[in-house]
């Protein structure tokens, strides 16, 4: 009897020590996506974060299907980190996500949104990768002109009411002046506003259509493309994914690369780095992508030097 008691007295602490290893509580990372146009970066983020094998971290992607009103449904529950893939998603998470930290992947005009105090030190519970797209709008116009020197007039599609639009308009207006281009503008608040786009292209004599950052435009890219193709003008998009979808040219960060970059930041957050002191990053690199097939279909002949300049040329 005494022998058994002694053994139990020894084995019990060992079992307790083994069993007391703290089971890590599950921490959910919820990726909030407004629609399919931004899904690629969300998936890249999720894949990279999962590859880190962080203990107890689970990634869940919530797609609002292109309807911003449904974004609020992606919030709530026990969430350790919201990851957003654009401005509207970030705003939704910041306003409705309580105290949960927010990490954005590809947000334009971070300072204008007011999500961060400084890029080098955000100071709140929001940080991420700023894609610099608002400022790059003018650069896209320049690259369009290099690729198609005959372009003289460009129709700019923008979404009123979103923060980066103002900075984007300033950027394209300044670029157009320097490049000697004429601009026409078409506000798009909803997909229905795209009706009549072809007529406006004809009416304004636009040689190309330029997208400004907008979740409405990105999530209804197919309709935009259908109408620009119908109008016979090339579309200048934001990133390579849009070129692959049918745009003629795009200059921007690779969405998947930004997703991976944000995953690295998320890992640092989970390792204990305070989000208030984690600087906003800019994308690793910008890529120029040109779709020769689209140009060919539209009867355009891009400058071959621009094709050499491009990081990727789709046939």
């Amino acid at each position, binding site marked *: 009897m005494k*022998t058994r008691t*002694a*053994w139990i007295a*020894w*084995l019990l602490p*060992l079992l307790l020590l083994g069993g007391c290893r703290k089971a890590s509580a599950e921490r959910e990372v919820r990726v909030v996506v407004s629609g399919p146009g931004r899904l690629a970066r969300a998936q890249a983020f999720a894949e990279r974060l999962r590859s880190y094998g962080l203990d107890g971290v689970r990634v869940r992607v919530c797609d609002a299907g292109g309807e911003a009103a449904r974004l609020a449904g992606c919030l709530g529950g026990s969430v350790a980190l919201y990851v957003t893939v654009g401005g509207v998603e970030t705003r939704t998470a910041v306003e409705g996500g309580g105290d949960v930290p927010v990490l954005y992947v590809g947000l334009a005009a971070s300072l204008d949104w007011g999500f961060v105090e400084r*890029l*080098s*030190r955000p100071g709140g519970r929001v940080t991420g990768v*700023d894609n*610099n797209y608002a*400022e*790059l709008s*003018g*650069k896209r*116009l*320049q690259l369009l002109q*290099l690729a198609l020197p005959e372009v003289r007039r460009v129709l700019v599609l923008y979404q009123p009411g979103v923060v980066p639009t103002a900075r984007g308009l300033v950027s394209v207006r*300044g*670029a157009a002046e*320097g*490049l000697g281009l004429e601009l026409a503008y078409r506000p798009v608040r909803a997909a229905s506003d795209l009706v009549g786009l072809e007529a406006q292209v004809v009416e304004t004599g636009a040689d190309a259509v330029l997208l400004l950052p907008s979740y409405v435009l990105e999530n209804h890219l197919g309709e935009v493309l259908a109408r620009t193709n119908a109008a016979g003008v090339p579309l200048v998009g934001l990133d390579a994914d849009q070129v692959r979808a049918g745009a003629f040219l795009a200059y921007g960060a690779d969405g998947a690369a930004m997703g991976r970059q944000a995953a*690295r*930041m998320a890992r*640092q957050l989970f390792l204990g*780095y305070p989000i208030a*002191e*984690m*600087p*906003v*990053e*800019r994308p*690793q*690199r*910008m890529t*120029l992508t040109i779709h020769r097939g689209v140009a060919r279909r539209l009867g355009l002949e891009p400058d071959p*030097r621009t094709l*050499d*300049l*491009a*990081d990727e040329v789709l046939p």
Partner: protein
Amino acid sequence: MRRAPWLERLEGRFTLAAAAAGLLPLVLVGAVAWYGLSRSYLGLAGARIESEAARLQGSLDGRLEAIVGVLGEALDATADGAWPLRFAAARLPEVVELQVRDDRGVRARWSRFEVDPVPLPPLARAGVPETWGPVQRDRWGEPQLTLGLARPSGRYLEARLRAPVLWDALVELRDPALHAYLTDGSGRILASSDRVEVLRGERAPREVRRGVAGQVFRYRDGRGAWRLAVARDVDRLGGRLVVEAPVRGLLAPLSVPLWTLLAAMLLAMAASYVPGWRLARSVTRPLDELARGAHELERGRLERPLAESGPPEARATVRAFNRMAAELEQSRLELEDYARHLEDRVAERTEALRLALERALEADRAKTRFLASVSHELRTPLASIKGFASTLLAPDVAWKPEEAAEFLRIIESEADRMHYLVNDLLDLARGERGAFAVRPAPRDAVRLLRELEPRLRRLARGRRFRVRLPAGPLCVRLDAERIRSVLVNLVENAVKYGPVDGEVALELDELPEAVRFRVSDAGPGVPEGLEERVFEPFFRADDATRGSGLGLAIARTIVEAHGGTIGLTREGGRTVAWFTLPKGGCKDA
């Protein structure tokens, strides 16, 4: 310093257990093995870090060389406008901005982000083909390298390069446990696998900035953790390339064998401790029991025997202790009992002593009385003898013969009296020392009394004298002369102390084992409580009564010499003097 008993016990047991299990050597071997293994492993890790640093430095130098080469080609080709700059930027993702100028001003510019960038400040100088300028930071906090190239033709190129992108382009650490970064000349981190420290402009630790280039060294980081590092100089940038890793991380692969070893040691300890503990306990338990027992004995009592356990020697010790304790307990109980009864015994002895003293005093008084009585009894006849003798011898008196004869008879009578008295004294003395001689012979007591009756009747002097004797004979072994004297003495006392008109009775009874002689009278007898004392020599209940006081004492001596008893009682208002003699021995009677 005195240590707590429980600590001493614990130490003793643990030491015994550890010694029994051989755990201490196991721990020492484990520690030495771990030390040697970790040292060797860190040595290998240091070599790996050194190799990685050398490889990275080669890549960095190669990349910087390529940048200089590509930008140099662009500079040389700027006659074709801005396109060479655009191509160069396309080939070099770290490029932020490029410009070519000559003595007449900026000839071409290209920016990765802006359409019409602000001209870069001149950096390239004539005669210096390659100039690396100070590190600048953009509004994002990103460090940017500045480079100036100069051609003898007077054409210059200035470039701004994103340091993190430069770094990302070339740094692919083969070992994910390692951490590498690049510093400028001031030690501020330009690029690293951790973008945070770059964007926040953190500085490398002092040890890294001052460490000998190319050698493995160890230092404590800001959190106090040891890190292993190698720093190599990057001459082009005037900074350092550092590859380092936390020692704990480097030793992580050893953690599994370490924990396995620890677990094995723990299990070994657990497995060995139980038998060791039991062994130690088997020795210490009897000692504890002995200590407890000794403590209880010290307090005065051991309520139950100690339990025997452990090895035979310990059991024998406990057994011996129990025996000793039992004997002590018995002794203690006896002492307690002795102490408890000591007072009684003292009281008893005191009483006995007091009685003995009283007896001694009484004996002394008796002796004094006896001497006084003897003196008195002897002096009286002596005085009479002396008086009549002196009277007869008086010279001036001529006594008649009949008067002289009377005087001589008186003198003879007093001499006889003295003679009887001395004989009685001698008999009494013999009786007291057990030397009183009687010569018993079988006699018929009835016949003896019938023969003695006339003499006794004369002694009654006219009082009624009644005799009651059994019809048949009663055979008794007796000295007839001595018994006659006893009966005479008893009858004389009855006559002497009884009333004049009273009756004196002589009776003989047969008892189962003896015969009883009874002489009674109607006198008052002796006072109550003095029935025994009347048999003492010279005792007189009444001093007025004449007599030597030796008769009853001698009677008792005679009776007891026959094996009988004598006594004096009151029965029905009469005083009865009686004595018994054992029956038997009369076959011839």
